[in-house]
């Protein structure tokens, strides 16, 4: 569940720095909203198609990126059909599709770890180092917790089944959360125990190396 849709590659799009891609995406979408017209939409669409080709994204992945939004886009198309005409309805929906694809291009050509690292790097420019470290710790911890919370949830579910209790939402969520909170407090303690600061003595090379 933790794998993103990254498509490995070595194109110029893949190699561009993650933050530059995020910045360009922002500019691209703002521009699309400001320039309301078929001309700018076509230019944007063609530029996007060119980038998708350069990055060698298979058409299957392009479709997969838009698919989750299809039914909402369908609804919006119908609404606009009544409000305006089919041309405007098509414009609004196509603009959405182009933006969604542009954003997907970022995800498809950037490793999650690289993007997270870039976000951390950018934050450390603006924030004091302690805050940047805290954010970095929170990101890693969250990835560590996801499988842990699932395990706790499964254990609670099995225990309730073994006791012949139904699997109502309430009977599952409360014990899962209480156990997760206890585990979190224990992890907080372990983090403190495992984090001697420079002032706490050893942990630095001091000749007491394990042989």
């Amino acid at each position: 569940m933790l794998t993103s849709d990254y498509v490995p590659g070595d194109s110029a799009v893949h190699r561009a720095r993650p933050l530059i891609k995020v910045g360009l995406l922002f500019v691209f979408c703002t521009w699309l909203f400001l320039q309301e017209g078929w001309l700018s939409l076509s230019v944007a669409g063609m530029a996007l198609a060119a980038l998708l080709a350069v990055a060698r994204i298979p058409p299957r992945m392009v479709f997969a990126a838009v698919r989750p939004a299809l039914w909402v886009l369908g609804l919006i198309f119908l609404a606009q059909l009544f409000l305006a005409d089919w041309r405007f309805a098509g414009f609004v929906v196509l603009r959405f599709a182009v933006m969604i694809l542009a954003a997907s291009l970022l995800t498809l050509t950037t490793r999650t770890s690289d993007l997270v690292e870039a976000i951390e790097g950018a934050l450390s420019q603006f924030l004091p180092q302690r805050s940047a470290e805290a954010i970095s710790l929170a990101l890693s911890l969250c990835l560590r917790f996801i499988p842990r919370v699932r395990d706790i949830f499964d254990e609670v579910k099995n225990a309730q089944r073994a006791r012949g209790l139904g699997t109502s939402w309430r009977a599952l969520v409360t014990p899962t959360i209480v156990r997760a909170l206890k585990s979190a407090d224990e992890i907080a303690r372990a983090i403190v125990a495992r984090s001697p600061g420079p002032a706490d003595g050893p942990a630095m090379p001091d000749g007491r190396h394990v042989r």
Partner: protein
Amino acid sequence: MIQLEGVTVRKGDTLILDAISVTLTERRIGIIGANGSGKSTFARLLNGLERPTTGTVRVDGQPTDRKSPLGKVGFVFQNPDNQIVMPLVDEDLAFGLRKSGLSKFEIGARVRSHLDRFGLTHLSERRTHELSGGEKQLVALIGVLVMEPAIIVLDEPTTLLDLRNRRILVSFLDRLDQTLIVVSHDLELMASMDRLIWIDERRIRGDGDAGDIVRAYREAIATEPC
């Protein structure tokens, strides 16, 4: 060397440990006692995770309330799931060293050398939640060892392990040069210690040769009314 002088711990109105004084100098010291006897709190006092309500804990002569003993005393928690912090094994092993002042390269080298030493190099890129229970316990232990503390406190290290993994862990412990302080119900492991301390009802009830204390402990439990 760790010294406790008249250490009392209270949580609210509950007395957890009552005026404990003891000096720990042996290389392998065991702590036994019933559930709720206060032995886990005792263990946590030793690296400053728990603070005494009254009395002093000294590590190498330094009172722990004035100078944190975290760098000198490593702590292995009972449940490795609550000790492993990072998503990947090598990231987790490097976790404690992130503020050590070592470079990324030096940290990586140190993590690798510790994995090598115990023949666990193959684990380095695994996801921590996919490890078996035994592997998790070993990763938790190595996460403490990379910090190269002089003293390691282990809280019930064998409780969650099957027989085979217990043997692997015990053989690991035998290979360590550090001073070990082990809290456990595992009487076989406890009998192999250089010294054993028996905590009962918030106080030290027995202290001395491991074989003698284990025998006294067994007798006391056997004669207790159920």
